[in-house]
């Protein structure tokens, strides 16, 4: 994209460097990486414009998400973070009035391409919501609900999957004796971990998190954050958060949305310590928002 076409764009598309060197730059790990043949950017948005009815929510979003990294989406309320996030797994598609221009790709293939199967897309791009949303079925069935729907496993294998995923999120010891119970009696934090286990069970490549800890207490929040960090580099994570400390702690890259625009994006340390735009500076230092 040339400067002529984008005269007011504050920041050109900059690639977010991968996290600690041990993850991305280690040659041994890189050689072992089964994804090495695939594009380095697992998802990409190109000149994306999102509207509800006549109202444009976001315009001209140009962004690449590097495989195996964590990207934080920050910005004041109503700035369109959720709208952007929910576009990535096409949750907005059936919202009345929603329309988009531009494109979003997953592994260089448009997510709106006719031969892109919506169910497969959602298996590959998972989502965790702001508030825990267990299904009205037993704890064990919750974990494998997606696995069953996608026919990934069946019968005895389901129990194995359930145990593995519950161990992965650190919930196994708490629930192993009550797998047949209702999930609604678990604490809010435990319910959110259960939903995380459920999302992980179908083996997504990208995980979208929309303020996943805003309804949780500090200890549960810390647990979820720790898990999120451990999930990379196997997964690419995009997380919306109002908690700037959280964005700083967990993410490799940060995007700042304001007033319908992607004002700036870059590595998290650059965005917080040395932002290019004044608005970003004001926001990350708490003078705005």
């Amino acid at each position, binding site marked *: 994209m040339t400067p002529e076409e984008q005269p007011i764009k504050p920041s050109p598309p900059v690639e977010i460097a991968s996290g600690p060197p041990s993850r991305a730059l280690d040659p041994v790990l890189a050689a072992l990486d089964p994804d090495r043949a695939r594009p380095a950017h697992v998802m990409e948005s190109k000149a994306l414009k999102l509207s509800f009815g006549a109202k444009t929510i976001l315009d001209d979003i140009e962004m690449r998400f590097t495989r195996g990294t964590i990207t934080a989406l920050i910005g004041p309320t109503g700035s369109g973070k959720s709208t952007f996030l929910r576009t990535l797994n096409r949750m907005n598609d059936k919202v009345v009035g929603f329309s988009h221009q531009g494109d979003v790709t997953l592994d260089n293939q448009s997510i709106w391409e006719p031969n892109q199967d919506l169910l497969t897309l959602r298996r590959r791009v998972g*989502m965790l919501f702001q508030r825990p949303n267990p299904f009205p079925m037993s704890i064990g069935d919750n974990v494998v609900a*997606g696995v069953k729907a996608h026919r990934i496993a069946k019968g005895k294998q389901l129990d194995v999957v359930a145990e593995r995923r519950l161990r992965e999120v650190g919930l196994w010891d708490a629930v192993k004796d009550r797998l047949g119970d209702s999930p609604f009696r678990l604490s809010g934090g435990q319910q959110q971990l259960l939903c995380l286990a459920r999302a992980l069970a179908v083996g997504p490549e990208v995980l979208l998190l929309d303020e996943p800890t805003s309804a949780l207490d500090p200890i549960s929040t810390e647990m979820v954050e720790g898990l999120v960090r451990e999930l990379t580099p196997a997964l690419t994570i995009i997380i919306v958060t109002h908690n700037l400390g959280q964005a700083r702690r967990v993410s490799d890259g940060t995007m700042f949305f304001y007033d319908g625009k992607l004002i700036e994006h870059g590595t998290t340390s650059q965005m917080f310590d040395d932002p290019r735009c004044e608005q970003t500076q004001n926001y990350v230092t708490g003078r705005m928002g």
Partner: protein
Amino acid sequence: MKAIGGTAGDLPGAPPAKAMRRAPAARRIVDALRSSEEQLWRWTARVAVVLPLAALVFAITVLAIKAYPAIIVNGWSFLTGSSWTYGSSYGATVHTHGVAHPMGSSFGAWPLILGTIQTSAVAVVIALPISIGAAFALTERLPRWVSQPLGFAVELLAGFPSVIIGLWGILTFGPFLARHVYPHIADHMPDVPVLRYFRNPVGHGEGLLTAGIVLALMIVPIITATTRDLFGQIPPLPKEGGEALGMTDWEVARRISLRWVRSGIIGATVLGLGRALGETIAVVMITGSILHVAPNIYSPMTTIAATILTQLDGALTDGTGFAVATLAELALVLAVISVAVNLVARFIVKRSGRLGGPVGRA
């Protein structure tokens, strides 16, 4: 009381204490009014709780008293026997256990009890899937400008006079079924247990299956209207969770929405079942009113409610009053069946509610 008035003034930012404070007499009147209001409210609530229960107990007690002579004479065979004769009203009156009744009278209600259960069961089996499908379409599938008038029509149908439906059933619908639908089922049924019950002859459209179908039409609106409201109250988040996981709309409906409101649907079904069990006039018109156990599913038969209506006139001519007592006993049996159905439903709700959606939470 005084302390409250005093502290309000001391709160930071509150108006000066003087302005808040009422004259003590006025304050006392206000307080007295509020507490008597509270008393009234509590008593209203108590009465409201007890009233329906009292009405039920009263109705069953009166029935039991009226039926008492019949209960004594007919004994347990009333529930298992199949003969239904009033005896000779001109002949001698005899006494059994001290109760006067016409000579030769003998009552067994088994065909009626079975018929009531059969017609209602057929109705529910047909109505439940249709209602759930319709409710789902109304809430999730159809655009608002279609679903709203359609929903209104459903509500109207829920209160539609059953005599009209019965008349239509016997004049048009029953004969149509007997001519164009039943033969296709009957001709293809193998001669094996259970399915044998669906074999020929199909009759003329008066009978068990027609009654079940017409009853289903009558209870579909009841179950649909309630289920639609239940579906509308499911919070969006669990459904979105299912979609985000890659479930199809059908899977979300079946695995999430339906389970979320399972106990409510059972409740709605019991409401419908209650109507089917007690429906009288339409059943009288469609069943053919034959007092026997239906030999196949198309055969004429009758139910408890229908029999009470059709036999009442004749029963009133029995000078000993025994026939009326027997009809009261029949009514008592129907009341017991209704209560039993509700208790069973309550038990199912309790068991399934364990894993259902939390009520009153998002």
